[in-house]
């Protein structure tokens, strides 16, 4: 029996993935999923383009959007073949990258210290709590006033949203660490810094990555708002100008692109988390075969 159980736990990796994929295809899941997505697209097509129901007739239709999206010579100027399309994506991504990087670099250490030092927490946290209920987007005009140009205000807004999420979750992460771990470290002769480095930081890691996951989500949320209100270039800007210029299919192209890039970035954050927390992946993998 020991051999059997050993096998079960050590046959991870490739074999496990293949096995999971094959069972997934044998279940009704992929077909139901296709049905669900297909259903939504059909409704869109029928309501807008075939039946032209009231209110729906003004909306961009499915075929209209698809042809525009993949047309080498788009009517409204934006498709997968136009360089502008990638320029907009690139600019949005760059803003996200700046803001997310800055928020992580500042937010994680701040959160760690807020959770680690009681004194620091007592001084700083109330200030944090006073500022937090103000919605990020209410900062828009103030950001425009404070920072010159059109680039910095957008990045500032995006940063602010990420920063709150990251800091707060990191702090919660430190606070959630069982006291036994820090006690054990002290028993084993670790000094303050060693405890911080070997217990506090890895112990808070799961929460930090939950925070980063939320952080990347709210970053996109604020970025779109910022770009719509004050930006030049970027996907939010695409959507907003498409509206004012009455080039409706481009709105949908912008939305789809936002969805896809948003999804990819958050997947990247999750993969980074899995990479840095092998111990968790391996613990969970046991319960997952």
């Amino acid at each position, binding site marked *: 029996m020991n051999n059997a159980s050993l096998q079960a736990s050590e046959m991870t990796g490739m074999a496990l993935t293949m096995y999971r994929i094959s069972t997934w295809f044998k279940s009704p899941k992929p077909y139901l999923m296709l049905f669900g997505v297909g259903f939504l697209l059909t409704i869109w097509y029928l309501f807008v383009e075939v039946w032209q129901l009231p209110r729906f007739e003004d909306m961009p239709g499915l075929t209209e959007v698809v042809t525009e999206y993949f047309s080498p010579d788009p009517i409204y100027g934006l498709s997968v073949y136009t360089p502008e399309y990638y320029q907009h994506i690139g600019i949005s991504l760059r803003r996200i990258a700046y803001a997310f990087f800055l928020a992580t670099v500042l937010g994680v250490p701040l959160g760690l210290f807020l959770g680690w030092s009681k004194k620091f927490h007592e001084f700083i946290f109330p200030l944090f709590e006073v500022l937090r209920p103000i919605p990020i987007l209410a*900062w828009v005009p103030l950001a425009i006033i404070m920072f010159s140009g059109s680039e910095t205000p957008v990045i500032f807004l995006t940063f602010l949203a990420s920063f709150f999420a990251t800091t707060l979750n990191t702090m919660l992460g430190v606070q959630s660490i069982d006291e036994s771990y820090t006690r054990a470290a002290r028993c084993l002769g670790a000094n303050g810094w060693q405890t911080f480095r070997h217990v506090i930081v890895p112990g808070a890691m799961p929460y930090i990555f939950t925070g980063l996951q939320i952080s990347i989500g709210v970053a996109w949320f604020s970025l779109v708002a910022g770009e719509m209100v004050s930006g030049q270039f970027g996907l939010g800007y695409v959507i907003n100008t498409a509206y004012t210029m009455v080039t409706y299919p481009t709105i949908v192209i912008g939305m789809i692109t936002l*969805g896809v890039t948003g999804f990819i970035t958050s997947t990247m954050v999750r993969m980074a988390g899995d990479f840095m927390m092998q111990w968790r992946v391996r613990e969970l993998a046991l319960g997952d075969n």
Partner: protein
Amino acid sequence: MNITKLKDKILSRAFFRGVIAISIFLIIWEVGARFESWYGYRVPWIGLIPAPTAVFESWGGLIGDPSYWMSWQMSFMRVLGGFFAAMILGIPFGLFMAVNRTFHDTAFPTFEILRPIPPLAWVPASIIFWPTAELSIAFVTFLGAFYTIVINVLGGAKSINKQYLQAAQSMGASQWDIFRRVVLPATLPSIVVGSAVGMGITWEVVVAAEMISGGGGSGGAGGGLGFFIWNSYVGGSYEQIVVGMISIGIAGYFSSEMLRNLGGFLTPWLKTR
């Protein structure tokens, strides 16, 4: 909270330290903002924004202004409208996904495909679709809260201890009874959490939507707090921007707090520890 407890809290070291930190923050802000008029040097960033005293002065002037309070009312109405719509549709949707596997496998992937699109990206499409600007704001607000509520309800209902269900089953309870008296109360805490988070998002979305769509068509003072901020910016009265920000902060804080209290009332068993 009784008087002695309140007194203890106010006299505690933590409270004292918090007050110190916030006071220092306000003083830096005040000095930074006024530095140019006093010494002729403009402090970067802070020098460009109005000083707290100026903000409070401007606020004092607005207290008696009915159009300021109209903005409060407009925003509150939109938030509540969108929020309740999200509750009414989101809770059953989430619960149904949790109890019916086929429905879950059909609807959830589609839901997950739509979810990464930020709610604000829907603003133009929503304006095109809905006949009035008011409805389009309501729709975007609804979307913001809807995703969060559904995810929380689904997560809560899926993580119910299997033994609760098995215990009910082995005592001969019907499917409907299990749903009503086990699944529903067991999910309630997650619904409360989801609603509180959803409420926060609702405020974010309302503010943005009001800014983007230009105050719900009626224009001027009828446009809600988001529009109030934007209008102050366009009109150059920077003090009022900060007043607007603080007002929204207060409004958001109180709506979340109210929800949390309501949640505590609905889940009395959670506070008995």
